[in-house]
């Protein structure tokens, strides 16, 4: 039996539930990654403009053990010293193993379904401890079910044991956010208590309902916060509010190049503040400049939360998003020689706000044999799309850093940011547009198929689905027709379907952000 076995004490359940409640305000789909060192829960919002990840270290649990499928590696935590030893061993082995699925148990589940169990009103009084179990499905072993299961076992008073079984989805994509790109020198850092921010934002209370954006201007000695009209200008803002507060209100206020003005949506930020408030811990906010994502960290003893929120630049750039993106798709791929579009607004594009902090990387299912998978992926990616941002722990990039479990000592987020947060990479290209790879990317195709696509000369192998869709709309099918193959057709259909999906979900969820997306 492979998977996770963890036991949470009663006092831990409260913060676990609060963490889930916070994640639930970011999005629906919770991805769980249980590595020997920690249990990491993460959520990306539907428009991929915000990402939240909360890690619980093994010390958070009374008992924590991860049994891994491939290497039969077992890391069990019984007492702190042993945990460290176990963690160390795991790291060594992890570095040796090329496949990341060997160092973690992972799965996806709806946040709500877990939360509805833990939020039950009597739970704080009646439950003594709670077991979290993940049983990984294995397709080949006959005695196990092929599906992974997430089990929540509540040990209540009077010997009552409640067991909830939830089926765990195979994660088909890994969402990894972009990190603010510049060096620590140009990075601004603000540390502030949750109460202070809350007091500030209370003056905007009426805006909370409609997920307003706030514009923050960090100056030399003061911070200005302004409600801002939505970029589309549709919704009548019947009240405009502006607040100016002394920078002394912030515990740490380090802005290397003031003033810096950034804008971002309140909805997710409020969720973060609520979590910080429940933990009574300050928010460590890092940002560089507008358009670059902002990150918020909250660090507790055995728990560590990271939030990445997209910021936008100015309300005026949003309207040109559409055209800019299409042109970019055309130029980038040199698809049509007759296309005389000059890239007149390439500079404008560069300033465009990133709608997403997260790009999608498809994972393969476990059904394949792991060794060949790793090889194929690595080689194809390396040849064809060296620019694609890859998760550092993704085995598709041969020169990536191995997954590094968190060192036990911790000295400031800046110093060890790279090592601390191996989930995130510095973008290796200057264009601020986040990318999502075409589903399925080349990595999932056989080398032969990939070669076919490359041979078409379309340059679509490293195109993301939005670009692809934009390209489809712009050019019509005729352009591509001469090179069309069945394979390509499927790819296109998928790309277009996906785009529609995004549109519909956006229309339903947050009409304001429509302009961020193409």
């Amino acid at each position: 039996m492979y998977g996770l076995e963890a036991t949470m004490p009663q006092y831990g359940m409260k913060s676990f539930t609060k963490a889930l409640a916070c994640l639930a305000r970011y999005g629906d789909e919770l991805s769980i990654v249980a590595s020997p060192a920690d249990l990491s829960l993460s959520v990306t919002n539907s428009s991929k403009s915000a990402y939240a990840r909360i890690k619980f270290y093994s010390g958070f649990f009374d008992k924590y053990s991860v049994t891994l499928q491939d290497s039969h590696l077992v890391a069990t935590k019984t007492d702190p010293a042993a945990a460290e030893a176990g963690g160390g061993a795991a790291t060594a082995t992890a570095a040796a193993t090329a496949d990341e699925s060997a160092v973690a148990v992972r799965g996806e589940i709806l946040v709500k379904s877990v939360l509805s169990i833990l939020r039950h009103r009597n739970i704080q009084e009646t439950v003594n401890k709670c077991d979290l179990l993940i049983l990984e499905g294995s397709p080949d072993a006959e005695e196990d079910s092929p599906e992974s299961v997430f089990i929540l076992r509540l040990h209540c008073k009077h010997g009552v044991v409640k067991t909830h079984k939830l089926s765990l989805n195979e994660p088909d994509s890994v969402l990894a956010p972009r990190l603010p790109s510049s060096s620590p020198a140009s990075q601004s850092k603000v540390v502030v208590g949750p109460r202070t921010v809350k007091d500030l934002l209370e003056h905007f209370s009426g805006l909370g309902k409609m997920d307003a954006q706030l514009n923050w201007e960090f100056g030399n000695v003061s911070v200005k916060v302004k409600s801002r009209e939505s970029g589309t200008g549709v919704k009548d803002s019947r009240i405009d509010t502006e607040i100016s507060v002394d920078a002394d209100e912030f515990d740490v206020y380090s802005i290397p190049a003031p003033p810096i003005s950034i804008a971002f949506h309140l909805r997710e930020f409020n969720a973060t503040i609520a979590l910080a408030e429940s933990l009574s811990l300050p928010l460590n906010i890092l940002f560089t400049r507008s358009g670059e994502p902002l990150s918020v960290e909250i660090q507790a003893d055995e728990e560590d939360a990271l939030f990445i929120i997209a910021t936008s630049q100015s309300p005026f750039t949003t309207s040109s998003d559409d055209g800019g993106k299409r042109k970019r798709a055309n130029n980038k791929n040199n698809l049509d020689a007759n296309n005389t579009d000059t890239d007149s607004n390439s500079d404008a594009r560069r300033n465009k706000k990133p709608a997403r902090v997260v790009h999608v990387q498809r994972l393969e299912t476990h059904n394949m044999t792991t060794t060949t998978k790793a090889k194929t992926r690595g080689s194809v990616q390396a040849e064809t799309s060296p620019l694609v941002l890859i998760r550092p722990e993704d085995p598709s990039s041969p020169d990536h850093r191995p997954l590094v479990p968190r060192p036990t000592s911790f000295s400031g987020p800046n110093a060890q940011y790279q090592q601390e947060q191996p989930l995130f990479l510095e973008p290796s290209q200057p264009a601020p547009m986040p990318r999502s790879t075409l589903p399925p990317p080349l990595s999932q195709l056989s080398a032969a198929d990939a070669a076919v696509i490359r041979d078409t000369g379309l340059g679509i192998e490293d195109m993301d689905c939005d670009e692809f869709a934009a390209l489809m709309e712009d050019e019509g099918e005729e352009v591509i027709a001469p090179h069309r193959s069945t394979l390509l057709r499927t790819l296109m259909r998928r790309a277009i379907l996906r785009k529609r999906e995004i549109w519909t979900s956006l229309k339903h969820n947050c009409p304001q952000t429509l302009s961020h997306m193409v």
Partner: protein
Amino acid sequence: MRFRAKIDHVLTFSRIVQTVEKLAKQCVIRWSPDSLQIICPGGENEGGVQVWSGRGPLQKSLFSDYKIESGSNNEINMEVATEPLYQALRSAQSSPDVIIKLAKKDDHAVLNFDVQAVSQQGKTIQVTHDVRINVIRLSEVEKLQEPQCPEPDVHIILPPLAKLRTVTDHMRPLSTLLGVSANRAGGFSLKIQTEEVAVETVWSGCDVPKITYDDEEGVQADPEEWHHAIVSVKSFLQFLSSYVVSTTTIACICQDHCLIMYVYIGEVEDHGGVLTFYIPARNP
């Protein structure tokens, strides 16, 4: 057109607006040198509740440094969305120093609130709100007519509204209509009656204002006689949301026609002002 004032009693003003916000999205505010009137003309809400604050010297008790100038008799009439107005006032609630003034922003008239809030560390937080308004002409305001109603059958001083609210809240799930009755001997009752259930709560010994009733027959009617009006529970609850601001409330019942509620803001002797609620009666 100029208007500028310092709000002395932010809490009171924001509670008035809070009450109004519960029953209408828009309200009309008439500022003049010696009075302030808030009007919710009804119509937009289902119950048809109207609010006409008395044109009393409300502005004296709420504001100081009150300066107003305009081309039409130094009066300014404006239409304001209640929710943002309440939001601005709520944000200003805890601050000692709030200036309100008429301003122009992007070619649109706004009520500008200048608030000096104090942070936990004792620092000043500068907050400004611009609430969009529409300045409306006097002729349009004059089209708004106070509802006509006959001479009330009974006047009574209500028990504290918060208590009435608790009772009514319990009745609401059972019925959509609520019978309100009172007599001239200090009796007041709230009653619901459906096919399944009848609930009545009676208060006795309420104060009765000294009013000489002008009965048609010229004969003093029986003080024990009850007078009724049936109103929608929802409308009644909307009125009861004024409990936040009320001190004394006088209810008048025009039998089977309407309820008129005079909600006194602050003590009656202070002349703080009156919010008058008009709740039309429903047919059973």
